[in-house]
């Protein structure tokens, strides 16, 4: 059964090729099913190889299959061959198993995405690369897989590449990993120079025969640099949190369960070389690991993005694995790698399910009480939480405890940092679970931004009212002026009419003896004048009456202005308060009193749309992974020798380099109880803070934590400042020196050519003459050399 090793990577490769050719035609969901079955086939093949290995004696559990010679160059001959030993098969099993589950999950998660088939193409290609990395029998093949997973990771992080942020995150991951790859390549060169071969079996054999300590030290350190990049250790971890820009199944498969563990795999694979290196090298590995673990755990405490928490948690857990590798606890490292693959994949997929159900909202502050809406997700997520927090008997406890025991064995200082990290792990994971699945249902709450927005809208309205009142007042004042003007006009008109009347009357009196006709006429004028006086008097009265009315209107308008201003002031104050307010807490929504009617429509929309549970394609993997997370600890229980399955199984791959544990049984029990106590403390404090509200969350969510200790900003500032100058200088040097040389050569050729072209006149007779002269010269030379 061991000659089917090649089938394991062949399945996903075939899947990728088929999807490349037919993907678009298969469409949704057939493309997804094809990819899933490819992974399933690969898993079955891996299980068969596993059974085949189990069939053999412990020492003979190495199957080596060479397919063809890949690079035959001089002394260097690299084959494409697969090496199935317990270490490789352990990794293969969880890569294919978890991989298949995540493929299945993705069918549900990627539903409706226009790049559906492309996604599964990348996933299968990734799985192929990862299997080549793990199963390759030489470093070059591993490097091929190493770069392959890097490329797929890039493609998948920036899967939604139309968003600039995602594209940048992909680039960041790729570039950061290049630094690590540089270390891997140098290590590879050094290995070839030292051993004359890149084949693992040769290298291990050579290292066991003994090698120069300095060389071993250099190789180990360079490999560690490579591992730091791929497995996201300080200082090269900074790409991993950004990698969360990819679809969640990608985060689960690549950035939690498989690819990021390849650094640990590589170091474990090369353990005979590590054993030959200087003593301080493994110690360095352990300290970098445990520092990264603590560092990332502190950052994870203050993140509000559900995936960011898990990302930093992954960095932290990988730090634990490096701690294990550094202390020589390879079994513990692999053990934790396996359990971590189960529970971290579970947690990521669970978070994906939550995000899916919450309409792409990733902020945990908006979650709360979701266990009522998505019971399966919640139940499985809680199992994953118990596993990672280190609650017995779930898997994380056993693997983490094993690492901590070995850390204590190596140096209590390592153990202290490790146990602090474990407490923090329990704390931030509990915080996440409580914020997401417990507590008040906050989805329909208006967020702080929305409240501020509402206040702004209300303020605008109030200001508009003030403006309207002011306008009204202005109109009223104009009316008063008009009325006053009317009085003056009416008075002058009255005086005029009276004068006219007086004139008419005196004219009538003077013309006492005039004829009848004249008198009548004058009498008529008097009547008319009397009438106009009457009219003017009435107008005057009207005008006088109009003024108080206008004044009353103006007064009312003034009053309106005053109220509107007061209102606006109140609204403004409210808006200012809202802007500076904390926006509510987990226990009370952001204060929206006063602006209930001005909230954006989204809030109303959320009130009517509840979170929903995901389809079975997504929940089934959750359930399977939850079961595995719960029971995976039984691979390697510490109580009796009889339970050390994983240790016995991995023994042939470790070549006796596993650290020897010289602790008494009671010491182990004490350490285990301290670890349990640590988990209990973490969970209790988190419960008091985020469930009961007895402690202020701000005590824990310090700014340095939330900002990731400003490491990202510092790197950006350096690269954007001095780094940029350096790069610019390099580019200048390239342009002037290198390009100058190239262009100079080209220009020189042009100059010479312009002159040399004169030798080619194109005239056949000149050519013939040249030939004739040449022939004569040649003959003369022969003649001179001839010996008669």
């Amino acid at each position, binding site marked *: 059964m061991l000659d089917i090793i090649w089938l394991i990577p062949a399945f996903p490769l075939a899947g990728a090729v088929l999807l490349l050719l037919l993907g678009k035609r298969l469409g949704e969901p057939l493309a997804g099913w094809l990819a899933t079955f490819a992974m399933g086939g690969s898993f079955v093949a891996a299980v068969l190889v596993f059974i085949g290995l189990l069939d053999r004696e412990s020492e003979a559990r190495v199957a080596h299959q060479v397919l063809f010679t890949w690079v035959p160059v001089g002394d260097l001959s690299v084959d494409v061959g697969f090496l199935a030993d317990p270490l490789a098969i352990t990794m293969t099993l969880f890569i294919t198993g978890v991989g298949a589950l995540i493929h299945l999950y993705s069918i549900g998660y990627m539903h409706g995405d226009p790049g559906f088939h492309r996604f599964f193409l990348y996933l299968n290609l990734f799985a192929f690369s990862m299997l080549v990395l793990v199963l390759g029998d030489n470093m070059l093949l591993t490097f091929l897989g190493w770069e392959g997973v890097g490329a797929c990771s890039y493609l998948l992080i920036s899967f939604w590449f139309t968003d600039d942020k995602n594209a940048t995150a992909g680039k960041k991951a790729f570039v950061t990993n290049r630094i690590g790859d540089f270390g891997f390549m140098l290590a590879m060169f050094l290995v070839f120079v030292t051993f004359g071969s890149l084949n693992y079996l040769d290298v291990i054999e050579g290292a066991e025969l003994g090698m120069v300590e300095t060389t071993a030290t250099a190789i180990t350190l360079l490999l560690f640099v490579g591992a730091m990049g791929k497995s996201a250790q300080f200082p090269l971890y900074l790409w991993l949190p950004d990698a969360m820009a990819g679809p969640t199944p990608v985060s689960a498969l690549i950035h939690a369960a498989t690819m990021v563990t390849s650094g640990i795999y590589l170091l474990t694979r090369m353990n005979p070389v590590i054993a030959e290196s200087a003593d301080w090298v493994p110690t360095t590995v352990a300290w970098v690991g445990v520092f990264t673990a603590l560092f990332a755990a502190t950052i994870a405490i203050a993140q509000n993005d559900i995936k960011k928490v898990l990302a930093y948690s992954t960095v932290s857990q990988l730090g634990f694995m490096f701690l294990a590798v550094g202390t020589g606890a390879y079994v513990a490292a692999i053990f934790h790698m396996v359990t971590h693959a189960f529970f971290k994949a579970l947690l990521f997929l669970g978070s994906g399910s939550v995000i899916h159900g919450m309409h792409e909202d990733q902020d945990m502050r908006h979650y709360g009480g979701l266990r009522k809406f998505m019971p399966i997700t919640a139940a499985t997520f809680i199992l994953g939480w118990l596993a990672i927090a280190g609650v017995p008997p779930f898997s994380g406890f056993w693997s983490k405890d094993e690492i901590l025991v070995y850390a204590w064995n190596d140096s209590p200082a390592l153990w202290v940092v490790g146990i602090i990290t474990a407490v923090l792990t329990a704390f931030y994971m509990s915080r996440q679970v409580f914020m997401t699945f417990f507590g008040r249902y906050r989805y329909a709450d208006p967020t702080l931004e929305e409240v501020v927005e509402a206040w702004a809208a209300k303020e605008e309205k109030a200001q508009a009212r003030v403006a309207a009142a002011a306008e009204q007042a202005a109109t009223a004042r104009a009316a008063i002026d008009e009325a006053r003007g009317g009085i003056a006009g009416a008075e002058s008109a009255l005086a005029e009419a009276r004068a006219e009347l007086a004139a008419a009357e005196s004219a009538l009196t003077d013309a006492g003896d005039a004829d009848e006709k004249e008198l009548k006429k004058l009498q008529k004028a008097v009547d008319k004048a009397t009438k106009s006086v009457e009219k003017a008097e009435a107008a005057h009265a009207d005008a006088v009456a109009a003024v108080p009315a206008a004044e009353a209107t103006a007064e009312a308008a003034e009053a309106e202005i005053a109220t509107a201003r007061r209102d606006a002031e109140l609204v403004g104050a409210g808006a200012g308060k809202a802007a500076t307010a904390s926006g509510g807490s987990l226990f009370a929504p952001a204060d929206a009193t006063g602006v209930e009617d001005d909230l954006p429509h989204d809030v109303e929309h959320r009130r009517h749309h509840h979170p929903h549970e995901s389809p079975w394609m997504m929940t089934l993997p959750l359930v399977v992974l939850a079961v595995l997370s719960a029971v995976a600890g039984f691979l390697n229980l510490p109580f009796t020798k009889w339970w050390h399955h994983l240790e016995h199984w991995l023994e042939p791959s470790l070549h006796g380099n596993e650290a020897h544990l010289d602790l008494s049984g009671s010491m182990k029990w004490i350490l285990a109880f301290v670890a349990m106590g640590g988990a209990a403390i973490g969970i209790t404090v988190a419960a008091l803070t985020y469930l009961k509200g007895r402690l202020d969350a701000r005590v824990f969510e310090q700014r340095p934590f939330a900002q990731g200790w400003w490491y990202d900003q510092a790197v950006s500032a350096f690269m954007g400042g001095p780094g940029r100058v350096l790069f610019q200088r390099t580019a200048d040097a390239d342009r002037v020196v290198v390009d100058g040389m190239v262009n100079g050569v080209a220009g020189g050729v042009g100059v010479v050519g*312009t002159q040399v*072209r*004169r030798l080619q*006149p194109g*005239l056949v*007779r*000149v050519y013939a*003459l040249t030939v*004739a*002269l040449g*022939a*004569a010269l040649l*003959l*003369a030379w022969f*003649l001179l050399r*001839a010996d*008669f």
Partner: protein
Amino acid sequence: MELAVFIISAVIVLVGAVGVIASRNPVHSALFLVQTLFGIAVLFVLLEAPFLAAIQVIVYAGAIVILFLFVLMLLGVDRAEDWNVEPIGGQRPLAVVAAASLLGILLSVMLAATDAVTGQPAANEAIDPEMSNVRQLGRSLFSTHVVAFELTAVLLTIAVVGAVVFARKVKGELEPIPELVPLQDEIAMTRAAAADPDEEVTH
């Protein structure tokens, strides 16, 4: 007798050769060429190669020179060449130098060093005085040199096809052969075109 024949035919050959290069009219050149070829045929007979003498007359004089004449008549290029003009400076003196040195070297070698000619006849290619010349050539061609002989057939076929392709009448206007521009001018033009990148460089 042999000497007399040699001298007469040598004179015929040389007169014909000089006639070829000295006649202003190409038709005369062709006729002088026939004379030379006949002389050579006689010398072949003298050297006991009667078959070659025969095909020299038939193929060379009979076919190739007739082909020359055909082309001359067909194209009407039988007008005289202007001898007073030599467009290529220094061509004539240099040609004379080359020819003189060639002649000097060859003559000195061939006359002075004839005795130095060594070598043994190949065993399977020796001339058998008992057998007729034609039979001997035929045997050699169709046994030892059969591959080369078959290849000449291919060569002739290709030549015929090539000739047809070159000489057939093409439909439509033919692109005229460009007039010759002095090289200095052409370099200046190319430089100007390179300095002004908008204009497309044709050379």
